[in-house]
Every structure is written in structure tokens, then in C-alpha cells.
């Protein structure tokens, strides 16, 4: 097995771990605001690791670039949407959870 393959495996497993964490957060966290944190985790870290893992296997620089582009687009959407939803929820008085 090549070094690149080992690296890919590690990155992909890491990505899957963060997706799992995102889902668990989505299910367990107590209010809209904390659940939005789960959203950015899967977007940002999980997909980032998976994309990097696959980019190592890519045939050309441009193909790797396309994978990175997909990641950046998801980041942009995730960041924008989580602000808009949080802001809307705040404006409509959705309650905070506090310990």
C-alpha cells in the first residue's frame, strides 16, 4: 500500500468521525443555536477531511482543485446559512438554552 493511500484512509476516517459528531450534535444539542454548531462542524471539518483525502487520489491538479472548490462552496453556504438562521431565530424570539 502506498503512502498516499494510507493518508487517504486516515483523512476519510477522520471526516466520517466529524460527520458522526455533527449528527450526534444535531440530535442531542438542546436548542436551535447549539444545533447550528453541529451544522458548521460537518460542513467545515468533516467534508474538508474527506475532500482532502480524495484530492490526494486525484489524477490532475485541476481535478483536485474541483474538489477543493466544492468544499469552499459548501463552507460559504454553511457559514451564510447558519448566520441567517440564527439571526432569524433570534429575531423571532426562539429561546436560548442555558445551563
Amino acid at each position, binding site marked *: 500500500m502506498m503512502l498516499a493511500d494510507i493518508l487517504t484512509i486516515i483523512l476519510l476516517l477522520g471526516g466520517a*468521525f*466529524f460527520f458522526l*459528531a455533527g449528527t*450526534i*450534535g444535531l440530535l*442531542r*444539542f*438542546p*436548542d436551535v*443555536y*447549539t444545533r*447550528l*454548531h*453541529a451544522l*458548521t*462542524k460537518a*460542513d*467545515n*471539518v468533516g467534508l*474538508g477531511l474527506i475532500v482532502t483525502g480524495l484530492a490526494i487520489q486525484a489524477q*490532475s*491538479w*485541476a*481535478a483536485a*482543485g*474541483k474538489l477543493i*472548490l466544492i468544499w469552499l462552496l459548501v*463552507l*460559504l453556504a*454553511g*457559514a*451564510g446559512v*447558519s*448566520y441567517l438562521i*440564527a*439571526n432569524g431565530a*433570534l429575531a423571532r424570539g426562539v429561546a*436560548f*438554552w*442555558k*445551563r
Partner: protein
Amino acid sequence: MNRLKLINSWSSLLTRLIMLSVLWWVLSVGDSSSWWIGLPAVLIASGVSMRLQPVQSVNWIALLRFIPFFVWQSLVGGFGVATRAMHPALPLTPDLVEYPVTLPNEFARVVFIYMISLIPGSLCVAMHRDTLSIHILDSHSNFLAELGILEQKISTIFCIPQQPLSAV
């Protein structure tokens, strides 16, 4: 003054042309026969971009330096939040804090908001005149210092001269 503005907007157009051309190259996976559709598309997209977005000077070296910082912050923060989510007791101490923002222009502020929301553990909830409402998952962490560092890095990227903290 006017001439400086003109130079700025020309160099801004040039930057956009280059960036969108790179984007086309990535999309078409380096197929050189695609350019006869790609070139007009890049020109139209640059035009729309110029129409929508004000001119903004960017320090590219600072932007490159920002990438490893962002990746590291994401990994560390993400790991912290992941362990919290999986911990049986769900050790969350969320809080809503007000953060006084010193970045002068709107575009830089919005980029700051995006970065806050992307780094796991913090989430921007509202934007007022000079403060941001930020929701954080762990109110015991050293979040104020981290936000300060992040803001400083963004002001370097957008070539904004540093202001003394007393200006707040």
C-alpha cells in the same frame, strides 16, 4: 485621489479576471478546447462581480498565511465540540456574548462573521452597529482572545491599518 480609485478598480477587475479564469480552468479540468465558451463566461462573470461588489484590496500573502491558521483552528475546535457532543453528560455551557468589532468596512465585517461561524464552537447570531452577538458553546474557554486574534488577521488580509484597542 480619483486616479488612485481608477487604478484600484482596474487592478480589482484584473484580479477577478484572473481568479475566475483559474476557476474555469478547474471546472473544465484543464480542457483547453473549452476556452471559446469559457472566455466570454469569465468576462460576463467578472462584469457581474464588479457590478455587485465594491473594490476591495487584498493582501494575498496574509491570505495564504491565514489558511493554515484556519485549518488548525477548525481541527482543534471541531475536535473539542465533537468530544462534547459524544460525552454522555453533554458538557455544554453555551452563552451569548457581545463582541465589539473594530473592522471599519462592511465586507471585512461579514468575512469576519463567516470565519467566526466556520470555526467550530462559535456562531455569530446578530450584527449591530459596532458589536457582534456571538453564541459560544463553551463559556469557560478563552474565546475573547481567540476572536481578537481572528479579527486582527482579517484586518491584515484586507489591508486595514491596525487601530489601538482604546478606539473601542
